[in-house]
């Protein structure tokens, strides 16, 4: 049994400070285990949001040593324990208390995205026929657990605070899942460009790097959406072709 020091953010929406807690650590522990141990032994009032402890609920998102991570999936043996491990709330959202952030902005954003609009059913019994290949393309996006780590790491939200003009990687993935669906008939490209700020993304791929579900956010969702926006709004040749077709 050895010990490690955790430098945990304590505070609320008005401000706060880092406090050091030294606790025993053992093989197989993750950051969330250590935080729970500190909560039980030294800081009973430490606020932390968690649920499944299996990387599937997306509740325990925080920043460990400056990088957005799920605390339940960050093993202590992957961190340098010879110096304090910094644990702080996500920076892209307002802090409620300690490690808990208010992510409700995300739910409001989701409501603003044009919902799924399937074409008329293919069969008389009201069912549709789709090729497995076409559906598989959007299945990747459905793995999202809404941990919002991608939103947290995105510098457009994190550093530039453009929450009113930019929906963030999570909702580009959501939009791509709808937009590329073989049954969907709605067109979201104008909103993506004008209201949802897809042009703000400068392809740093930070969202892809932090995704615990390993969704290829930038290459498979955001860039294809950017290309669709170019088709619709900027490319004169595609515009011309569309005009002839219609």
């Amino acid at each position, binding site marked *: 049994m050895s010990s490690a020091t955790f430098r945990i953010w304590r*505070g609320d*929406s*008005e*401000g706060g400070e880092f406090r050091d807690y030294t606790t025993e650590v053992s093989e197989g522990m993750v950051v969330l285990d250590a935080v729970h141990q500190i909560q039980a032994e030294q800081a009973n009032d430490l606020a932390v949001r968690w649920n499944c402890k299996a990387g599937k609920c997306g509740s325990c998102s925080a920043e460990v*040593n*400056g*990088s*957005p991570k799920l605390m339940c999936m960050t093993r202590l043996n992957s961190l*340098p324990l010879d*110096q304090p491990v*910094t644990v*702080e709330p996500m*920076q892209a959202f*307002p*802090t409620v208390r300690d490690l808990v952030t208010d992510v409700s*902005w995300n739910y*409001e*954003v989701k409501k*603003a995205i044009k919902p799924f609009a399937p074409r008329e059913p293919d069969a008389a019994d009201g069912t549709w026929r789709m*090729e*497995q*290949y*076409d559906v598989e393309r959007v299945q990747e996006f459905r793995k999202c657990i809404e941990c919002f780590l991608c939103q947290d*790491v995105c*510098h*457009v939200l*994190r*550093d530039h*605070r*453009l*929450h*009113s*003009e930019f*929906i963030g990687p999570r909702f580009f993935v959501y939009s791509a899942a709808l*937009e*590329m*669906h*073989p049954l*969907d008939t709605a067109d979201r490209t104008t909103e993506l460009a004008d*209201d949802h*700020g897809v*042009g*703000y*993304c*400068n*392809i*740093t791929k*930070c969202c892809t*790097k*932090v995704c615990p579900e390993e969704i290829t956010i930038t*290459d498979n969702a955001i*860039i*294809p959406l*950017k*290309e*669709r926006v*170019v*088709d619709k709004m*900027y*490319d004169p040749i595609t515009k011309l072709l569309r005009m002839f077709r219609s």
Partner: protein
Amino acid sequence: MEQVHFATPVRRWAETRRLDAWLTQPLGVFLAFTAFIVYSTWAAFQGDHYHFGPYLSPFYSPEIFGDSPHSLLGPRPGWWPNPVPFSPAFLILWAPVGFRLTCYYYRGAYYKAFWHDPPSCSVGEPRSSYRGENSFPLIVQNLHRYFLIFALALLVFLSLDVWNALWFEDPATGAVSFGIGVGTLVLATNVVLLGGYTMGCHSLRHLVGGGCDRIAGLPMRRPTYDCVSCLNRRHMLFAWMSLVWVGFSDIYVRLCAMGFVTDLRLL
């Protein structure tokens, strides 16, 4: 959308609580890009030592106007203004430069390395204002698909250069015979790597099928989309390998032409 209010301040330039060596990657990219830009600019301005026997440097291919036997339309045109320096590379280099400058992978890499926008993930930025690619000037990055057309055409010319690099002229008799030299392999590798990079382009992926919601029913579209997607997953790898190799190809031809290196004939 709703406004969000924060108590935590925005971080300062390079401020982060990351403990890893986050600076290594943007610094490496900065140094590699700078070295390539300096060398390729110097090489383009030379206007000399860009061909050797059947080999033509990829920086100068296709040679539209120029003094070498590879020139398609003869020597420097009369309409070229005298005070402006001339090099055959000026007529062609804008296309691959434009293609790489507007490439989705390179954009992300040089925004980080040169603009620090951001320097690395979850590291503070030097500027508070940000417009991204939402407005001028960076909105012109959307021209990528047009540069793609030129990049695909260049692949055809570079493949022809490899074909030409298989035919060696005997200086004594003037007879042309089939052969393979080290330079042939250098130029062939260049085409393979550039092909891997160009064919894995995000815009190409969109054009061959990514823009459609239903691909499965289209017999040609599905395998093409799968093939481009496969290369696209290695886009960064091909971007770097092709960048390094195109520079090396120019250096090889240049050193042969200057007499510093003897081109070995393998066949």
